């Protein structure tokens, strides 16, 4: 899969032939230095952008062949996205943010509220349901964003530097939550990160450099140090 874009008058080759297959549910990290193409890859996988060449198949469906409205419906029902900046709608409460996909899908209000409250309770945010984002802490906002991403129980969830704005303790909580979701809900979670500590929560890590995957490592307690070393080397 390739993808290039223009920046001013320059043409940037962001992805130069990526071949990635994730077949089993689990927590997968994509690591790499700045400019390696990891965010571009995530955008393509999350049906937010289209590749120049290549195929993207999710759950047996070729998303690179979908039109705009098919992509929209696919994102709504089959994909969850969590952002570094949380990206909650500032005019909506936590409950309204969590249930936004259901609102867009036309779910009746009472059903929406039930679903949203159950989810917030699971996430430990039931008492924050009516609060707007500006009244929530960073960790709470990210948990609300995760709740919004898993509302329709998608088979795949993408997280773009989900702990980039959080302190270490809160980061640990959020990463544990994602790992738990992958394990208990049988989901594929793909996380873009450049922190080895975050990647340590994953089962597998793909390391990108210059638009190509240069290493894929199965992560376990014994090789976290190797992961850190490779990531550090790449960062240098």
């Amino acid at each position, binding site marked *: 899969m390739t993808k290039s874009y223009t920046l001013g008058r320059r043409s940037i080759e962001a992805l130069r032939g990526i071949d990635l297959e994730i077949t089993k549910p689990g927590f997968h990290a994509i690591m790499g230095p700045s400019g390696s193409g990891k965010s571009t890859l995530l955008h393509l996988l999350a049906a937010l952008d289209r590749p120049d060449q290549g195929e993207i198949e999710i759950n047996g469906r070729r998303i690179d062949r979908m039109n705009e*409205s098919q992509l929209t419906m696919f994102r709504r029902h089959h994909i969850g996205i969590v952002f570094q900046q949380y990206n*909650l709608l500032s*005019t909506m409460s936590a409950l*309204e943010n969590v249930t*936004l*996909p259901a609102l867009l899908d036309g779910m009746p209000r009472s059903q929406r509220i039930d679903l949203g409250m159950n989810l917030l309770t699971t996430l430990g945010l039931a008492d924050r349901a009516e609060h707007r984002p500006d009244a929530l802490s960073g960790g709470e906002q990210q948990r609300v964003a995760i709740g919004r*991403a898993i509302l329709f129980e998608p088979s795949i969830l993408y997280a773009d530097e989900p702990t980039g704005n959080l302190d270490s303790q809160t980061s640990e909580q959020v990463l544990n939550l994602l790992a738990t979701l992958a394990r208990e809900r049988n989901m594929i979670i793909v996380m873009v990160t450049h922190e080895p500590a975050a990647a340590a929560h994953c089962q597998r890590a793909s390391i990108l450099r210059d638009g190509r995957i240069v290493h894929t490592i199965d992560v376990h307690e014994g090789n976290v140090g190797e992961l850190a070393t490779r990531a550090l080397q790449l960062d240098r």
Partner: protein
Amino acid sequence: MKEMSASWQLALSSLIGKRWRTALMAGAVALASALVVAVSCSIVSVQASIEHALMWFLGASDARIVHPFNGRFDESILDTARTWEGVAVATGRFGLQLTLTHPLTQTSPPDKDPDKDPDKDPDELQAPLQSTPNAVGVEFDLVRRFRVFRDLEGTWPDEANELLLDDFTADELQAEVGDTLSVAIDDKTESFIVAGIYNSQKFFGTRQRGLIEMDLHTLQRIAGMNRKLTSIYLILDDDIDAQAFCDAHYDEVPEQVSLERSDMVRSGFDRQIQGTRLGLLAGSILTFMCASFIIVTGLTTSVSERQRDLAITRCVGGSRGQLFASQIYFGAILSGLGIVIGLPLGIALAGVLAWYYRDSLPAGLQVSGLGLSLSMLGALGAGLLGAIYPAYLASRVPPLQAMAARARPPSWRVVMVMGLIGLGLVALQVGLFQLPDPTQRFHAYAYVGIPALHLGAFLLAVPLLYLVTWFAGPLLSALLRIPAGMMTRSVLATPYRNGFTAGALMVGISILVSTWSNSLSLLNHWLSTVQFADGIAFRIVGITESQRAAIESMPFVTRSCPLRYLPLQVFNRQVFGLENMGPRTVKCFSTDLDIFFEINPVRWIEGDPEIALERLKRGEGILVADRFTNAKNIGVGDVLTLGSGKVRHDYEILGVIDVGWLEITAQLFGMRSTYMELAVSGIFMDGDVVAERYGNSDIHFLQVELSDDIDDAEASRQIMAAAPGILFWTTRDVRDRVNEIAFTTMAIQSVIAFAALALSSLAMGNVILANIRARSYEFGVLRAVGGMRGLLARLIFGEATIIALTAALTGTLLGMHLAWVGAENYRELAGLDVKLVFPTIPALIGVAVLLLLTLLATLPGVWSVVHPRPSSLIAAGRNG
């Protein structure tokens, strides 16, 4: 349906989430709605009051016999009418203008106490009070079957020497029931007792003079016109159709009088109402377009500000259609709020005005169905049209925008396209102005051309913003000590938002410039025409021979020229205005042509004076004012069919002359036709020919030339004292009156323009504030890298100044274009050849006010970026 529900919820969410912004934008629509409702209800209330008073004067009559040429006819026609089958009651009236004197034998009123006003002449304060109302001679025993006299104080007159005064005259004379008033006519003086005072049906615009009722035969005797009448009113039996009755007896009245249905008096008035409705419709379209500009700018800013939110919605599965619909719903909700608030507010405003002017509006507050409909449709249109572009923008937001830190740079191509569309819309308006048919041209221009022009100017504000920024930016940067290029780049980073803001702000300036330009052009035109002999005496029912003799015998009167006024219908063509809407009546002035041309500086435009004068005296043709030629290219050799009722004659035009002063003087004296219609423009005939053909030889005006050794004011005083019952104005009085009317009109127009300026500034203040808040991150970074607070404040002020200057430039250009269009309309519809004037001082004042309001609008924004710490600004910017 599910999709719609989601869009609705999204719209509600952003509406509730930005309450203050929503309130201001809804306020803009509400004020526009309120304005349209208030104006329409006020117009309808005034019209209803005029109609009410008109109907009161006509009373219960079904038909009337009148002399359409303001003349008198023999009372024998009344005797004949009483014999007609189907006539239940018939009564005659005789009209005259009388000067009443109240000797005021009682003590002076407190405000006239000489001790309190030492500058006043004690003799003047002791002088008897005088008033010159219209007097109507009526048959007292019959008149009450026709009309109801409200709140009558005193008793009903039953003696020949008793009078009924309206409250207007009673106030002027400080007269009470039982007082004795004297009437001077020629060299006689008679005394009358005030039997009763009634509450008059005063109304705006149509009458400033009092009205008294007295015994018919007494008034005939005073006027020296026994058995003469000016009108007869008939009440028919219930089963009689008035039109059929008039048709049946049409031939039984003499040629020079008309038997017609009483409601025919409304015909000119109805045409005026039709014209007013068109004006209201065109005005409403403009008002709501302005509201729409505010909404489109507000929502566009809102969409720009919410790029990230919209992108997130797209990321989590929101479709383009849902985002598009959410903005449209937002617009619809604004419309709804505008209607809910604006309609009652407008009615309340009109109600307050109706209450304040309750004495002049006997019909009270009237709610206009047309105004309410226009207001609702306009508000809905403003909201929906204003939301379309932002909705399009919202639907085009890519989901990836959620990850982008900043907005994309503006596209030159879009700016160019916008400029071209703007120019195209202006060209469309100019093109519509070239349509050959005048009526089509007017309607196309009013309902398509003017909105297209405003929309074009609104779009052109974006490229004009570039021009102003390039030219004024460096100078302003230097003045405000802003690093070179910083402000220019900052303003042009969001050219649409800033350009649209300027576009919405331009409206007040354009109204100010166009109305002042047109008014000053008209004023210059009228003042340049007011050049005639030193003074003019006037009496609506004709100056008597003795009054004329009294004036001419004054030692300081060197020459005089009598003029007769006759409203005539033009039958064979529409000479002014639009077909079926413009007035059909022209002013016919007849005179002793030799004297007239001798004492007046008349400019011949077409025709040979010598031949024309000879043929005029033989009744072979007419002269027309140059307005005929200006408007419809009517000139020498063309034929007009003139007359009224049964009397019609064809007249060849023998010459075209410029006598604007006479037209405007007659207008100022309030001369109307018998059909409630102000006659426009003048034609000239020989006095003897008119007397013979139309049966009216009254002298309405007497032009007077004064010797150099008499002061104007003293001459006026002496003439009015020597000839009671007449009004006398000098040239200066006429010019003063023209100035007074022009400046009153301009003052009202300026209030409207400044209100539009304040309204748009209020609404745009909110947009400017949002714009500043949307750039918190940028300002935070500037502060973080060492930018001083003062620099941020100066930057924001500088940007606001650029926007205000763009608004001023766009508004001035639009205003002058509108003024040109107005001048063309004056020529086309009224035949006035006015020269375009640029109103320098009002335009400068307008620009200064606009700058001030815009800078004031930025103050909360400035405070919001200079007050917090840089980290808060950066965080606020990141979180959107």
